[in-house]
């Protein structure tokens, strides 16, 4: 594959992530903040998001496993995850968190456990997608090309 084909593949893949709702406009904002002086900005922020999320999901699993569930704590964790997913543009994770918080308010353990599953699923999906995207970027750069500027035209 030549650089041009790789770039087109990257564009198509990125577009699909937006169309399928995995990413929203905030991800574009992140890309716009990246430049020659900060060439790794998106990868850095997203890596932090991965670390943060994995820690929070662990804490959530633990908190919901307790005899007497502390819903305030659970809600605080979900609030944090909602914030960070919103900040990186991980739309489906964010939306899953919003639903989750509603059940925290109702203090419904069963529903919360279902939500946790949902959030974990969405997180895994978006993690895989973004890792694939970053791999494509590395290939383009290794072949001497540059990452195209994304424009949301749909």
């Amino acid at each position, binding site marked *: 594959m030549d650089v041009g084909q790789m770039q087109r593949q990257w564009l198509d893949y990125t577009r699909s992530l937006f169309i399928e709702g995995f990413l929203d406009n*905030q991800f574009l*904002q992140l890309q716009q*903040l990246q430049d020659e002086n900060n060439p790794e900005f998106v990868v*850095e922020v997203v890596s932090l998001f991965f670390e*943060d999320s994995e820690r929070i999901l662990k804490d959530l699993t633990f908190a919901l496993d307790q005899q007497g569930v502390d819903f305030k704590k659970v809600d605080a964790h979900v609030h944090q995850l909602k914030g*960070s997913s919103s*900040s990186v543009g991980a739309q489906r994770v964010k939306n899953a968190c919003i639903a989750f918080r509603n059940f925290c308010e109702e203090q419904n353990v069963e529903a919360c456990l279902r939500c946790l599953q949902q959030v974990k699923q969405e997180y895994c999906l978006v993690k895989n997608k973004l890792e694939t995207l970053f791999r494509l970027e590395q290939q383009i750069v290794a072949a001497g090309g540059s990452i195209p500027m994304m424009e949301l035209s749909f």
Partner: protein
Amino acid sequence: MGLAAEAQFHVLAVDDSLIDRMLIERLLKTSSFHVTAVDSGSKALKFLGLVEEEQRNEEPSFVAPKTHNQDVDVNLIITDYCMPEMTGYDLLRKIKESKSLKDIPVVIMSSENVPSRINRCLEEGAEEFFLKPVQQSDVNKLRPHLLKSKVKEVREEDQVINLSRNDIKEILA
């Protein structure tokens, strides 16, 4: 130090989320602001020298009251609302209650759109309230607030010199 339209403005950003600190720092730097980012309200107050000032005010001194801590020149504070221990609102109040810091413009950020929260902050003296995630267009709104405070600062420097002369007169009388 004259009116500096060309000088770099120094923004203090306060947020307990590392990701959001990275974001706001990048956004501010893109707009050519000099940025200091801290992760709590208490660290912000420490940075602003507020803790020291409270101790200093208990002693009589010949030192002219400053409009801002001259060791740390902060032109704007942008803070998250939801933080453990000290919320952005608490921080805002402490700043507005401080003689030396009250004129520094404060902007609040929050992930939640709660009208009563927004009004409370604006009534307490916040210049703006930004919904997270903060955008470049929000950051672009900051410059007028910064320029306004620079002008005020320059005018007040004259008054400060006069005040200290009076202080000395009283003490010597």
